[in-house]
């Protein structure tokens, strides 16, 4: 019972991080504050990964998302420096966007409720102690195993390569 309460407490804490950071990102008028809210939200997602026994993904989340992507976004905000202090309002169709988001959320929750009524709540198929040690090694093997994900892995690296070259070409100053 103690452990259960502890899990719910950690879950609620990270949920507050994720949702609060997300709302801040979506609604803050100052673009720089948006980026800072985004860091909080991404940190909450990293906490969820730890809670779900995926420590490698949690580390990658902090390194790649918070360390690289958000820093890149902040660089872009600073390079377009007239925007730093700009307070922008939502566009003219924001009310439809809000309605669409609420309706989408309602449909998803309705589907979840309909799919899970009558059955017991789905619980983890293995206790956490049985996967934590092995899961990183298994993930590494899965990504380079010929029978599993080596082709998507190589395609993903090619995609990243092409995207980086493309980004340099697009952002380069014309002579």
């Amino acid at each position, binding site marked *: 019972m103690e452990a259960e309460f502890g899990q719910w407490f950690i879950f609620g804490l990270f949920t507050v991080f994720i949702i609060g950071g997300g709302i801040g990102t979506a609604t803050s008028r100052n673009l720089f504050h948006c980026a800072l809210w985004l860091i909080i939200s991404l940190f909450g997602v990293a906490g969820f990964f730890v809670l779900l026994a995926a420590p490698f993904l949690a580390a990658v989340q902090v390194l790649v998302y918070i360390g690289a992507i958000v820093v890149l976004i902040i660089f872009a905000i600073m390079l377009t420096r007239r925007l730093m202090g700009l307070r922008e309002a939502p566009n003219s169709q924001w009310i439809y966007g809000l309605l669409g988001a609420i309706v989408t959320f309602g449909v998803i929750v309705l589907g979840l409720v309909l799919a899970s009524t009558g059955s017991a709540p789905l619980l983890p198929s293995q206790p956490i102690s049985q996967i934590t040690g092995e899961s990183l090694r298994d993930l590494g093997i899965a*990504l380079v195993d010929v029978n599993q994900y080596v082709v998507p892995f190589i395609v993903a690296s090619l995609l990243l390569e092409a995207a980086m070259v493309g980004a340099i070409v697009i952002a380069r100053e014309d002579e």
Partner: protein
Amino acid sequence: MLPLNAFLIVGALLFCIGMYAVLARRNAVAILMGIELMLNAVNINLVAFWRYLTPGTAATAEGLQVGMAGQSFAAFVFVVAAAEVAVGLALVISVYRNRRTVIAEDVDTLRY
């Protein structure tokens, strides 16, 4: 133990917040941040399903193996997110250099 639905609902909520940001923001960088939120919601779902359904086994050519589909997909989503944000911000900087604006509605040369 936490039920699977708890994670799925948080994922759905985060996805909808990201969707609102994409639809309602005028600034192109803020729209990119909304897309990041949506990709993170997808990642939560992928890892949650991995944790709750598959970490035991997966059928491959050599019989049963430890299933890593969810975590592998999440790793690919990381790659796609990094590529997307790099190209997106390059476009934003290029547009800003040429037009002195990053408001998505003002960049409408292709519209008419």
